[in-house]
């Protein structure tokens, strides 16, 4: 009896010690997959430098309004899935806004090439399964840099997979339309790489530790996006050691 109590007490203490020793999953220090991530990171950098960055810079020479049209198309056809996500997040207003945007831009916006809804006060607001999982309380998990995929967390990549597999447009539209959308999506990912080039070029090729620079930038940006801005509670008092 006594031995059992001592034993359970010891186990309890060991468990508590384990808890306090492990880094907080919401801190920037938590990085359980660092070893394999760093391998993927070095490969991704080489591929980016050799292929993605030059391709993106070439694509960037296309006039902005044309690139914007491609972006508009991609965003428009993401809207049916995003409307469902807003509903799953129990966010009624964004759900209604996404549905309205889709109706306006598909009709008056020539299938989504133009974005008249934005001028009517309904700008694009990205929401995907990663956000739904966040709203449902799923923890973000470890930071996970995938080969060819770039930065993410375990939760983000799970959401991304669900977005692709269960996209309602891809489930109902004819093959010719979905193939065209895949082409549009590919071009727009190249455009994303172009738009972020000044920032990413600095992060990847001018940092003392580009893996950490990209990882903590990604995590902070993702958290702020899901929380709807900078959390005042998390601001540090910079004079604490000064």
């Amino acid at each position, binding site marked *: 009896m006594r031995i059992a109590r001592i034993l359970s007490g010891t186990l309890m203490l060991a468990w508590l010690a384990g808890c306090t020793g492990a880094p907080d999953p919401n801190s*920037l220090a938590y990085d359980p997959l660092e070893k394999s991530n760093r391998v993927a990171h070095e490969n991704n950098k080489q591929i980016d430098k050799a292929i993605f960055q030059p391709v993106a810079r070439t694509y960037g020479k296309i006039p*902005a309004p044309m690139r*914007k049209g491609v972006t508009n198309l991609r965003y428009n056809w993401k809207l049916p899935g995003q409307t469902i996500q807003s509903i799953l997040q129990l966010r009624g207003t964004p759900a209604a806004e996404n549905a309205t945007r889709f109706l306006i831009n598909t009709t008056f916006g020539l299938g989504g090439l133009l974005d008249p809804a934005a001028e009517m006060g309904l700008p694009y607001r990205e929401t995907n399964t990663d956000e739904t999982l966040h709203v449902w309380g799923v923890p973000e998990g470890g930071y996970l840099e995938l080969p060819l995929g770039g930065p993410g967390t375990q939760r983000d990549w799970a959401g991304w997979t669900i977005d692709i597999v269960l996209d309602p447009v891809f489930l109902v539209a004819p093959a010719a339309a979905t193939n065209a959308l895949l082409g549009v999506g590919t071009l727009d990912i190249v455009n994303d790489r172009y*738009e972020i080039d*000044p*920032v990413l070029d*600095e992060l990847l090729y*001018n*940092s*003392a*530790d580009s893996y*950490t*620079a990209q990882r*903590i*930038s990604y995590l*902070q*940006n*993702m*958290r*702020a*996006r899901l929380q709807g*801005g*900078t959390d*005042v509670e998390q*601001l*540090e*008092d*910079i*004079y604490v*050691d*000064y």
Partner: protein
Amino acid sequence: MSTTEPIARRTFLNGLAAAAVLALLPWPAEAASVSQAQTLVNTISGELTGLVNSGGSEAQIYRGFESILARYADMPAVAAATLGPAWRGASNAQKQAYVAAFQSYLARKYGRQFREYRNASINVTGARDAGKAGVLVQTTVVRPGQANIAVDWQISDRSGSPRAVNLIIEGVSMLANERAEIGAMLDAQGGSIDRLTAELKGRA
């Protein structure tokens, strides 16, 4: 001594009463520092947009940017926060040299990014009191034909006057990133602050 004591005590009690009243009315004091922080951000924003649109050379823009940092940011405190525990072990001469090198490194690095904000306008959208951490002033950088960028400014008056101590761009804290960067550079230089300072000076 005995004659002045009642007066001293009364003064002390009056002071205490005044302090109690102030403690009960935190709002006006907070409001003042929040509005001061907003004013500071408006001033810096005006200078920044003026500088980026001045048509100056790259070197001129970096110099202008460094001058803005020196005048409106608490650079010694920011530099100390990026260095962490190593700051305390440094001599005064090492600290001064590091702060100077860090300031011009930061000006070049962020000056490069700010050059992309040509024709942009910076609009203050709100401000919130963040207690000991200072005041968070929220701005939106509006660029024609491109997505807006959320830039938050952390302003603190702990140095005696309101000064910028951090920039948070789309949720990404400049301080957190530079702490990681400086940490990596310090490790690469075997923990030597002098070599770190030399490394910072040499960085483009």
